[in-house]
């Protein structure tokens, strides 16, 4: 009995240490964002700001196009999340329910498409977008990110749909639904937690990208939060408080999204990735 109660402390001990590791960078980011520029460069540094100020936030929000970047990032990331999840669910359903020939090859092909390095694709993809008139538009970026996240979404949602008993679709078809109708009305609501998991994944990927956005957009009107931040790190000066204020703002949406949906995320991963 004694041995057991000793074991009980171990998880807490581990978790507290891990939480410190996880939290310190956040604290540092937040604390720096409240410092004056001078204090941020002090030797030795201060852990918490001596005279906290919101000046950096003011600078970022009022004096740059950050609100615009924020909107762009949101549209692009949400678009990617929705598109890749919807297409992924369609494909997942197809792979899960229909045993057509060449299925394994197709899955292999979809998974293998993840192996192509982005640096290689971005130049020619850009040329293509210009030809079809989608350069510097939201859809152009959303398509690009969707292809990156699609393999994961498809595979996750296939796993999830595998766990849904096939009798459900059959019952729907007896009630007069078409195959697509059954998918839209019966399957989609049931796999909602799995879709949440893939959506968060896709959202984060699109939200955090720099290379594609850098190359595929032009001007301030289409820039995203990460691109805006990278422009703050210029050759000419790095203003850490502003940069960290920008980082706080940039981290907020994924953070909030995750906090709101964390139950569905874990539930979705459990069903999608674990069950066979």
């Amino acid at each position: 009995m004694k041995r057991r109660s000793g074991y009980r402390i171990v998880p807490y001990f581990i978790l507290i240490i891990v939480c410190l590791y996880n939290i310190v960078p956040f604290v540092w980011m937040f604390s720096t964002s409240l410092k004056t520029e001078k204090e941020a460069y002090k030797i030795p540094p201060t852990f918490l700001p001596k005279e906290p100020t919101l000046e950096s936030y003011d600078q970022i929000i009022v004096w740059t196009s950050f609100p615009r970047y924020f909107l762009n990032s949101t549209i692009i990331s949400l678009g990617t999340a929705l598109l890749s999840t919807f297409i992924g669910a369609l494909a997942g359903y197809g792979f899960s329910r229909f045993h057509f020939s060449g299925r394994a090859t197709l899955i292999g092909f979809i998974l293998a498409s993840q192996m192509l390095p982005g640096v290689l694709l971005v130049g020619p993809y850009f040329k293509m977008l210009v030809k079809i008139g989608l350069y510097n538009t939201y859809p152009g970026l959303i398509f690009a990110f969707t292809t990156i996240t699609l393999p994961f979404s498809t595979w996750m949602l296939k796993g999830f749909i595998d766990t849904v008993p096939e009798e459900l679709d059959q019952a729907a078809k007896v009630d007069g639904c078409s195959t697509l109708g059954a998918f839209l009305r019966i399957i989609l609501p049931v796999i909602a937690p799995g879709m949440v998991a893939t959506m968060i994944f896709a959202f984060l990927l699109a939200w955090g990208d720099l290379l594609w956005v850098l190359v595929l957009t032009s001007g301030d009107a289409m820039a995203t939060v990460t691109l805006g931040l990278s422009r703050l790190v210029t050759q000419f000066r790095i203003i850490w408080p502003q940069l960290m204020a920008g980082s706080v703002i940039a981290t907020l949406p994924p953070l909030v999204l995750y906090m709101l949906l964390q139950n569905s995320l874990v539930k979705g991963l459990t069903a999608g990735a674990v069950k066979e």
Partner: protein
Amino acid sequence: MNPIISESSSFSIFARPLSKKLQGFLFVLPCLLMLLLVLGFPVVTAIVNSFSPIWSEVKTFTAENYIKLLRDELFWNSLKVTFIFVVSTVFLHHVLGMIVAVALNAELRAKRFFRLIAILPWTVPDVISGLIWRFMYNPTSGIINYLLIRSGATEQYIEWLASPNLVLPSIIFADVWRGYPFVMIILLAGLQAIPREQYEAARVDGASRIQEFIHITIPNLMRIIIIALALDTIWQFRRFGLIYNMTLGGPGHTSEILSLYIYKHYFKYLNFEYASAMAVVMAVLMIIISLPYIRMITRKV
């Protein structure tokens, strides 16, 4: 994005007369089209480029880029750095992820709180985590040296990102911070799916926690571990933003991973053809490495 959606919904009209096989294929079609349309042209262009002479207007077939590659010590160096980076980050993601997942799976108070904190770093884009860590590692104004000096662990300003011996470990440490939570949730999801009865039975037999872990947890998790390993390996291979923002490959070439080296040749030196050859090699390598995983998944379906 709408054309594809509307295309897939329109076929519901014809749904009935279609064979089941064709129906299944139609469900998969948007996904395939998307990948083919977006990736097809870039891939073909890259391969053609990789066999063209460098800086030339005319495209004639030559293998000189690949031959040059074999003799480029910086290419081999970047392969080595990539290998170290990928192997150590993936390994640490899994070790730490497993420890935290097991801890979170225990009966705990404040479980939701701990779980919330444990996943937090995953929500930070890697470009931004590169920036945060770069500032934390700053020798004179960064928090890390400050804490070490305050606690008496060192008297010197340690140059985390400026020393060839410390730079990779420092980058790996920063990457693990951001990367392990995702592996952790996948593993946690796997842990929660293990039937409780298995543990209860073992406990009746008087098994220790460690025996339980080896004989119940690990075998049950095997499949999910392999999947997490494979996904993580692919993603780590492609990692770019973190090192781009932390060191740009320096000091020297000690943190120059392959994706960064390709980027430099493509966008800084404008050696498109040479960069394409490297990227083709990188893709082939990744496919070879992940072949067992792809086969495992496709065999199961």
